[in-house]
C-alpha cells in the first residue's frame, strides 16, 4: 500500500499538469476575439505579479515594481526602434535594462526597510517616471513612444503566423511566462531561495550566521526587475506604444491587489489572484454591461477577500486538493 500511494499521487500530479496544459492550449478556442486579447494581457500580468512575489520573498514590498516593468518596456522599445535589434533580442535587452535599474535603485533603497522601503520605492519609481516625461529624446515625453515594432510574422507549414493576432501572441507570451515561472521557481527552491526566506523571517538571525542580507535583497530585486522588464517588453511589442502614465501608482495598486487577493505564500497564489480578478473585472462585469460600476465591484471584492480570505485565494487550494484526493481515493 505504501508503495502504491506515491505512485497514485504521481499519476494524479501528472494528470493535473496534463489537464492544465490542455486547458491552456485549448483556452483560445472557447474565447471571443476580445477575450483572447484579454488573455494575452493576463498572461503578461502573470509574469509581472509572479516577479513581484519574488521580490516579496525577502520580506520587502515595493511600490515601484510596475516602473521596472516600464523600464523593460522602454528599454525594449528603444532597442528595437533606435538600435534596430530583432524583437526577441530587444525583449531580452528590456529585461536587462530593468535589472540594471533595479540594481542601481537597490543601493539607496535597501538602506531602508519595511514601511520606509515601501515609500522609498514609490519615490524612486516616480523619479524614473518623471525622467521619461522630461527627456523627450529618447523617451518621447508624456506621449511616450509609438509605432513600436511587433514580432515579425512568419510562415509555418503554409500558415501565416501573425503576432498582431492575439492567439499567436498568447502562445508566445505563454511560452515566455512558463520559462519565467520555471526559472523563478528554481531560484526559490535553490539554497539562494531558502536564504531569501531566511532574510524574510529572521533577518537578524540570518545576519548573525553570516548571511549577507542586504546583498540577498539586492539580488532578489534585480531578478524580480528583470522578469518585470520582460513582461513590460512583451506588453510594448504587442500594444505598439508605451507612455509614462501606464506605469503609475494606480497600476501598482492593481499588482498589489492581485498579490494580496491571491496570496504570496505560494508561487501560484498571485497567479490565482491576477487570473480571477481579471476574469471578474474584464469579462464578467463587462459582459453584464456594468463597465462603469467595475471600480465599485472591484473594491468591494477586495474588501471581502481581505475580510473573509485573509490568506488569499491560495488558502483554498489545499482544502480543495485534499477533497479531490479523498474523492479520487474513494472512487479508486
Amino acid at each position, binding site marked *: 500500500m505504501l508503495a502504491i500511494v506515491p505512485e497514485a499521487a504521481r499519476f494524479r500530479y501528472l494528470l493535473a499538469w496534463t489537464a492544465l496544459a490542455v486547458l491552456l492550449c485549448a483556452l483560445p478556442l472557447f474565447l*471571443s*476575439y*476580445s477575450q483572447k*486579447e*484579454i488573455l494575452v*494581457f493576463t498572461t503578461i500580468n502573470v509574469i509581472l505579479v509572479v516577479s513581484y512575489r519574488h521580490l516579496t520573498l525577502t520580506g520587502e514590498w515595493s511600490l515601484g515594481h510596475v516602473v521596472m516593468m516600464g523600464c523593460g518596456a522602454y528599454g525594449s522599445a528603444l532597442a528595437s526602434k533606435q538600435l534596430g535589434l530583432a524583437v526577441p533580442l530587444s525583449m531580452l535587452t528590456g529585461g536587462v535594462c530593468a535589472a540594471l535599474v533595479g540594481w542601481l535603485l537597490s543601493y539607496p533603497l535597501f538602506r531602508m526597510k519595511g514601511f520606509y522601503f515601501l515609500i522609498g520605492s514609490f519615490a524612486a519609481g*516616480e523619479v524614473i517616471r*518623471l525622467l521619461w*516625461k522630461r527627456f*523627450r529624446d529618447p523617451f*518621447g*515625453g*508624456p*506621449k*511616450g*513612444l*509609438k*509605432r513600436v515594432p511587433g514580432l515579425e510574422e512568419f510562415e509555418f507549414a*503554409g*500558415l501565416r503566423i501573425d503576432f*498582431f493576432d*492575439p492567439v499567436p501572441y498568447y502562445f508566445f507570451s505563454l511560452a515566455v511566462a512558463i520559462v519565467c515561472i520555471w526559472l523563478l521557481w528554481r531560484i526559490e527552491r535553490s539554497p539562494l531561495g531558502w536564504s531569501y526566506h531566511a532574510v524574510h523571517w529572521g533577518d537578524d538571525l540570518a545576519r548573525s550566521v553570516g548571511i549577507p542580507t542586504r546583498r540577498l535583497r539586492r539580488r532578489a530585486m534585480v531578478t524580480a526587475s528583470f522578469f518585470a522588464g520582460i513582461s513590460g517588453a512583451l*506588453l510594448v511589442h*504587442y*500594444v*505598439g*506604444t508605451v*507612455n509614462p*502614465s*501606464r506605469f*503609475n*501608482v*494606480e497600476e501598482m495598486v492593481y499588482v498589489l491587489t492581485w498579490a494580496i487577493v491571491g496570496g504570496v505564500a505560494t508561487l501560484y497564489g498571485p497567479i490565482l489572484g491576477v487570473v480571477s480578478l481579471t476574469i471578474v473585472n474584464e469579462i464578467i462585469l*463587462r459582459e453584464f454591461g456594468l*463597465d*462603469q460600476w*467595475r*471600480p465599485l465591484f472591484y473594491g468591494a471584492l477586495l474588501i471581502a477577500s481581505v475580510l473573509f480570505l485573509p490568506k488569499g485565494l491560495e488558502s483554498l487550494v489545499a482544502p480543495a486538493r485534499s477533497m479531490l484526493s479523498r474523492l479520487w481515493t474513494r472512487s479508486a
Partner: protein
Amino acid sequence: MKNLKNFGGSFSRRRLLAGANALSVSLLSSGLFPRLARSGEPIKIGFLAPLTGEVAAWGKPGLDGCLIWAEWVNALGGVKLGNERHNIEFVAYDNEYDPGKARTGAAKLIREDGVQFIMMLGGDTWPGVQPVAERSGMLVSTLLPSDLTPDTTTLIAPAEVHPIYNVTGVEWMAETFPNLKSAVICAQDDALGLPSLATYLAAFEAEGIELQQDPLLFDPATTDFAPIVTKMLSSNPDIVSLDTCYSDYVHPICEQLFQQGYEGKVISCTADFYEQIIEKTSKEFMEGFIFQFPDFDDPALNDPRVNFKDPNDFFREYNRRYPGEWGAVSWEYASIMDLWKEAAEKAGSAEPEKVLAAMKSGGKGAHAFGEANWWGREFFGIDNALVGNWPVVVIEDGKARVKAYKSIPDWYDRHGELLIRHMEALGQMYYQRG
C-alpha cells in the same frame, strides 16, 4: 504532391491550404472588416472612451449626450441610407484611458459588435487603436487632433481642434481688455498640457502680451496647488492662464487664486462644472472668467450659422437626465454624430470609406459652430481636422455666456508661423512626436 493520408487519398496539402485560405477569407470578411447593416437593422456606433478613472469626465458625459442624440434621431426615423431607414445604436467600451484596453475595445467593437464608426477621446489611447483601425479600415474620430499624423488616414478630428481654438479666447480678451499686458501660465506636463501651452504662448505673443515668468509645468500627480499659485502670483500678473488643465486641477487652482487674493483676469481652456468653482470661491471672483466651452442653453447658440440641432433643448434634456454633469464633451460626440449622419445619408451607405469620402467632399463640413474647412496638412500632415469658428465664453453673473465667435483659420493665416515655432520648441509638431 504528398497526400495527407489521415484525411483520405484525395485530400492534398494544396487543397487543405486552399480550404484554409477560403476559411480565413470568410473569417476576415466576417470579423476583421466592418459588417454592413442589413435593411432595417440598427447601425452600431462604437464609443471607445474612458468611462471610469481620472479622465472619465471627458468620456462619460459624451456618452450620455450620444444616448440623447440617438433617442432623438431614432424617434425621427433614424438614418436614411438610400431607401432604407436604420436606427442608431451605441456600443460603449470603457478603455480606462489605457492603450492596451483601447486596443481590446476597438477589436471587440469592430469584430464582435460590427460597428461602422468609432468615436474616441484619443490621446494616449489612440496609438493602441491605430493598428486595429488601419487593418480594418475603420473610421475613427478623436477629440484630440494631436493624434493626427500623415499616416492616420482613417482618423478624423471633426469636433474640436484642441488646442488651437484657445487662440480665439486670447484674441477676444486682447481686443476687449487692451490694458491687460502681462500674463503667467501653468499647465500639467502631459500630452494635453504641452501643445496647449505652445498655443497660449503663441496667442499671447501675437497680442503683445508679455509672459512674466517661465511657464509652470506641474506633474499630473500634483494635488497641492498652493505653491504653484503663490509662485505665479509673485510677479503680479494681469492674466493667469490655466492652459488646458483637467477639471481636477482647474478647481483647486481657482480656489487657491481666490484664497490668495487674486483679482486679475483668468483664462482657461475649460471650466467644467464651473458652478462648483463658484460655490468654492464666489460669484464675484469668477466674474469675467474666460474659457472656450459654452452651455448649450445660451441664446447665442441659436445663431443660424450654428449647425448643432436644438442646442437649447439638448441642454435642457441633458440636465434633466444628468443634473450637474454637463461638461466640455457633453455635446461634442453628439455633434460628431450629426456630421457622420449627414455624410452617411449623402453616401447612401454606412461603410466607413464611403462615409469618410462623403464627409470630406468639397473640403468643407458642417461643424457644430458653423461651416468649417478640412484643414491641417501644415500642422498635422493631413487635412483631417475640421476647423472654423469657435466660441469665446465668459462667466457673467454666475452663468457661462458666449461673447463672440472667432475664426481659427483667420488667426492662423495671420499668426500660423508663431504657432508652429512654439509647437516646435516644445516638440509638439507631428514630425516631432513619438
